């Protein structure tokens, strides 16, 4: 515990005097580093990368891969997912594009 505290204090002084950062810059780096530190604990808890027995490979992708051609007739499973199984999602996405254009025109063409 004292080692970590010592490393943090040494890093603060190094950034302050060697890199000639303002106090604001030092605190920004500390904040961002803290966020990255806690995120890396999440990575250590995650299942191993690239294992076919991970929890994401449950019955839903199995259904999509197994019955996809019989259900939709498309060879490309990603296409059949976004336009058949989850087509309402894609309709919302088209709406997002539409709203983006409306917002851009309303922002730039107004006086």
């Amino acid at each position, binding site marked *: 515990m004292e080692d970590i505290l010592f490393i943090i204090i040494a890093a603060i002084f190094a950034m302050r005097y060697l890199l000639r950062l303002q106090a604001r810059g030092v605190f920004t780096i500390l904040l961002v580093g803290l966020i990255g530190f806690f995120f890396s604990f999440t990575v250590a808890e995650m299942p191993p990368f690239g294992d076919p027995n991970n929890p994401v490979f449950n019955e839903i992708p199995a259904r999509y891969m197994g019955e996809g051609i019989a259900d939709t007739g498309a*060879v490309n499973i990603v296409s*059949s997912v976004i*336009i058949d199984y989850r087509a309402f999602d894609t309709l919302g996405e088209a709406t997002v*594009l*539409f709203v983006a254009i409306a917002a851009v025109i309303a922002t730039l063409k107004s006086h």
Partner: protein
Amino acid sequence: MEDQIVRITSRLVAPFIQVYGIYVILHGHLSPGGGFSGGAIFGASLVLVALSFNLEVGAKQISHATASVLESGGALGFVITGLVGVAVGANFLANRAAGFPLGETGEFFSAGAIFIITAFLGVKVASTIVTLFYNIIEGEDKSGDAH
């Protein structure tokens, strides 16, 4: 920008990019790609011509009114294709249950509603990109001096 190399190259390359974009849109159910990437490629080719010449030449290819009609028409075609399912008696945006012919798997005309909706999405995305680019690069007034 008065660069002869860029003008000649873009004039030569633009039709091939457009053919590739249409290929990517229409083969969305057979190969990687689909409405979004193919529409983006097609729209980017239109913007390429407008960037290498000037905005008036680009606007001659697809006018603003045509682009907005195509954009609304793409979204409308998506919804109408979905409403066919409701009219037949199945769910909204149904494919096989709405009676679209699935065809033989792996053929060009197959996958029923996916083929139609991908084509509409490609038209919509292409006109969206053209409209966004022109709206950002044009000035306050429509006949602005932006180049």
